[in-house]
């Protein structure tokens, strides 16, 4: 088992058993094809994740036309890189500048741009992040180690409808697209880090 190193946790084992039972029932009922389950897990693990977003960001940093397109029509410009699909049908890209810092949340659940960032990390789904980032964004960003100047315009985006948000961080030094892409972190594209 991949999590043999974890402590014995009866609650977690209970959850595993319940999910297993549901899976078996769905297959027995003919509602789910087990091959589809395997395929979708593999798809999300292999085809999505922050490196997709990083490639988009790096291209935008080095290609002014692409950057303009990305900021005008995020979904289309991102699809041009081959990234599309559920929770990414309507993506809007938010540009950080020397005076504006954007940070993204979903206070009601955990909406997140899957095709470009994968599924969200635990902290993004946490009650503390969802509760606090809209009320005290500066304090929350400081907990992430990002202390913003008092005159920065801090904009919090709560993903309450069908738009998913990707932050375009400020470009560090450098010109090589691959090298730049390697500098782009997931937190940088959510807005809880600078690069």
């Amino acid at each position, binding site marked *: 088992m*991949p*999590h043999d190193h974890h402590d014995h946790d009866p609650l*977690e084992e209970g*959850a*595993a058993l319940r*999910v*297993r*039972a549901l*899976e*078996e*029932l*769905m297959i*027995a*009922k*003919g*509602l*789910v*094809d087990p091959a*589809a389950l395997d*395929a*979708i*897990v593999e*798809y*999300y693990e292999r085809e999505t994740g922050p490196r997709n977003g990083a490639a988009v960001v790096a291209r935008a940093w080095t290609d002014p036309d692409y950057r303009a397109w990305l900021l005008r029509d995020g979904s289309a410009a991102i699809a041009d890189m081959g990234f*599309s*699909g*559920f*929770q990414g*049908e*309507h993506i809007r890209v938010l540009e950080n500048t020397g005076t504006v810092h954007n940070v993204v949340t979903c*206070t*009601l*659940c955990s909406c997140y741009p899957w095709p470009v960032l994968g*599924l*969200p*990390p*635990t*902290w993004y789904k*946490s*009650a*503390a*992040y969802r*509760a*606090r980032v*809209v*009320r005290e964004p*500066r304090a*929350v960003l400081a907990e*992430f*180690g990002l202390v913003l100047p008092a005159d920065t*315009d*801090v*904009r*919090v*985006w*709560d993903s*309450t*409808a*069908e*738009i998913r948000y990707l932050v375009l961080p400020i470009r560090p030094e450098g010109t090589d697209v691959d090298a730049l892409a390697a500098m782009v972190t997931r937190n940088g594209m959510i807005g809880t880090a600078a690069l």
Partner: protein
Amino acid sequence: MDGIHDMGGMHGFGAVPTDAEEVFVHDWQKRAFALCETVAWAAPFNSDQHRHAIERMPPAAYLTVDYFEKWAIACRTLLLEAGLVDAGELENGKKRFDLSPGDHTPVGAAELIEATQAGAPMSYPEGTASPAFQIGTRVRVSRASPAGHTRAPRYVRGQVGVIETDLGVFQFADTMARGDGPNPQHCYTVRFEARDLWGDAAEAGTSMRLDLWEAYLDPA
């Protein structure tokens, strides 16, 4: 629904677990996620209904159950409500009755991946509905909170903001979650000043933007 899920602005949840970077820790979490993504093709529920089924969990459970187990629990709720399983089957995982094969066809692997990559846009052509508000209009968010699914969080209820972007025409989550169809309408990004939401204690130089359907909004 002013439920436990509506967390924006709440105190008492402590520090953000900033180091909790993982997406999955356990293999069963992947299976729970995959199950929800897959079964929705053969069972009659949409994302809004799934979200609402999570919101309907008892509040203490909502706060303590693993994120992906919540997905699985919501899935079970919806399957039960659709009559596709019964409580006994969910209890022990053993099938007790068959479904009519033609009615519920499981999605195949290739078809699922193709559909996943294609996505399912939730927008409608611009002409489907005309916008009630223009950029720059001051709007007040409705006080009403239906007991059902809604996407206007409590922290902007009754508050005044400014229309910043007309996002176009979208299906409406509230009616989708009720199974009442898309009710297409304009959706807007509305800007709220932190001071209007949180009073004098608001952090200076901060503002919040929410995407709100027209049905939630009145002229201020």
